[in-house]
């Protein structure tokens, strides 16, 4: 469960202060599929970094599963990320010259999981994200954008996180591959019961979630259920 209480984030670079988040408060329950929407520069990524324990708020409280993480050290945050959170970044962020399998198992490498176990987990995660088996041993830089994003999703799933965070996962993809990725998230939510927080600036993408939080200039302006929820229409055989 995610609980944000009056979160502020101020960036200060050479005496110029930027108020990226102003008094953000909301709760996301386990198993929810939430989209965070807003125009560019509204503070979406900043919020995701705080929810994902990559960063800490300047003031306010952030409770993850009831635990206040806003005052933890670098390494303690790394531990929480390793155990509970999976990230999908806008620009994939795969290691080049490294095989798909190795990329996916990287979080488990840092968690110190033994070789056979982590290979199994990586294979399971790749299947769950509908990544074609024939490419498992390809280097990540030999893949198409849609495939790379599915590797990134598999990597986010490999440590069995309760919370999956995705920052504009379809931003770099065409509509068709975007659809495949959205389908993957919907299945993860429905079939595996994961909590998913998806960030986007496209209303079309946000409508695939159950609930949308709109933010503008670092403040929540709207928070409500999606009326006509879209279901990604994609035949998995097409992959």
């Amino acid at each position, binding site marked *: 469960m995610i609980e944000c209480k009056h979160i502020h984030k101020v960036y200060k670079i050479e005496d110029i202060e930027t108020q990226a988040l102003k008094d953000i408060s909301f709760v996301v329950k386990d198993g929810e599929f939430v989209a965070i929407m807003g125009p560019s520069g509204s503070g979406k990524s900043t919020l995701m970094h705080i929810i994902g324990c*990559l*960063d800490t708020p300047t003031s306010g409280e952030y409770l993850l599963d009831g635990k206040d993480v806003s005052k933890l050290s670098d*390494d303690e945050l*790394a531990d929480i*990320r390793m155990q509970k959170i999976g990230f999908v970044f806008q620009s994939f*962020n795969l*290691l080049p*010259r490294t095989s798909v399998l190795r990329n996916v198992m990287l979080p488990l490498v*840092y968690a*110190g999981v033994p070789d056979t176990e982590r290979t199994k987990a990586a294979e399971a995660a790749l299947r769950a994200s509908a990544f074609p088996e024939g490419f498992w041993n390809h280097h990540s830089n030999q893949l198409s954008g849609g495939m790379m994003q599915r590797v990134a999703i598999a990597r986010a799933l490999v440590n069995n996180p309760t919370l999956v965070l995705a920052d504009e996962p379809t931003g770099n993809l065409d509509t068709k591959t975007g659809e495949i990725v959205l389908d993957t998230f919907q299945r993860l939510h429905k079939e595996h019961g994961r909590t998913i927080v998806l960030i986007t600036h496209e209303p079309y993408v946000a409508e695939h979630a159950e609930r949308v939080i709109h933010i503008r200039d670092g403040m929540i302006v709207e928070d409500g259920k999606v009326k006509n929820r879209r279901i990604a229409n994609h035949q998995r055989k097409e992959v």
Partner: protein
Amino acid sequence: MKISDVLHETYTALSANKARSGLTILGIVIGIGSVVAMISIGQGASGSIQASIQSIGSNLVLVTPGFQRGAGAGPVSGGRGSATTLKQEDADAIQKEITQALAVAPEISRRYQITAKGTNTNTQVVGTVAQYPQVRNIQIDAGSFISEQNVRSLSKVAVLGPTTRDDLFGEGSTPIGQSIRINRVDFKIIGITKSKGGTGFGNQDDVVFVPLSTAQRFLAGDTYVTTISVQAASPDVMATIQQEITDLLLQRHNISNPQLADFQVLNQQDIVQTASAVTNTMTILLASIAGISLVVGGIGIMNMMLTTVTERTREIGLRKAIGAKRRDISLQFLSEAVMLTFFGGFVGIALGWIISLLVTQFAGIATSVSVSSVALAFGVSAAIGIIFGYYPARRAASLNPIDALRYE
């Protein structure tokens, strides 16, 4: 994170940029290579110098004449050892008074033109006594050395060194019974000595031995001696004997101030120590110069690692985002630096080894690559990796994951 995983990541990172990794370790290769080569040349040289000092005899104390001063010579000083202040009687006195002396061998040596059946050569003629081979570590190859009988009866006999024999009678011949002419006096050859090695000015094989009495009477026309070689019973008593001889000769020559002594007494150990001090200094000097290139190589590694950290900022951010701790990141970068220097050290040792073999082959200088110098080189290269890799690794580890991910 397990060590095998650290090594896996390190290998992937280094092999991704083979050309750059290779060029970076070149500094370490050259540095370690030259340190190993310099130390091996230094140690080899010191070994061969000590061996050649040892070959002139064991537990040796040498008495040589000093400067010839005063006595109408005015301000002009003859060269050291040119004086005729040591007499036959001095040698006899040492023989009699110094009980710890095992053997005493006076000699009178001078260069003469020597002729034999149409050939001739210019070489050192040493007039000496029967104890000489024992004191100066000389072995007989054929025939016999000068006997006490020869000395007593002023026999005109000669023993040739192998080089002189080769020059006068041809290589490998055994001219025993034939005669040579030194300073218009005929000598009969009674023996040939074994080779002791050495070349050029240090050639101990280009020599002719004759009885001391014969040399004094027929060649020098005087009873002075040029060197008295004294063999001590053991290395422990060498210093004592040296002092006793000094006291004895000062008294015999009526000199009260030791500063004005007209002779000098040298201890073989002192010579060995001086020589090894000189070669050690040389070795340290050469190795330090080579060491400078090691430091330069280390800075090269640091430079490359800093560039790498900057280049891979995004990658570091990603690794941290998915759960890498500070320790994992710094370990990975440190291991990259150490792997580079270790590999450089390995190649450098091979290079140094080859250089020292080539030096032995073509320059004829003895070299020896010792285990300790190889261990030192490995230790130094690993240490350089740690020292120069530490700062870049720390920089990488302290990167903030978000800043790193945002970095373009």
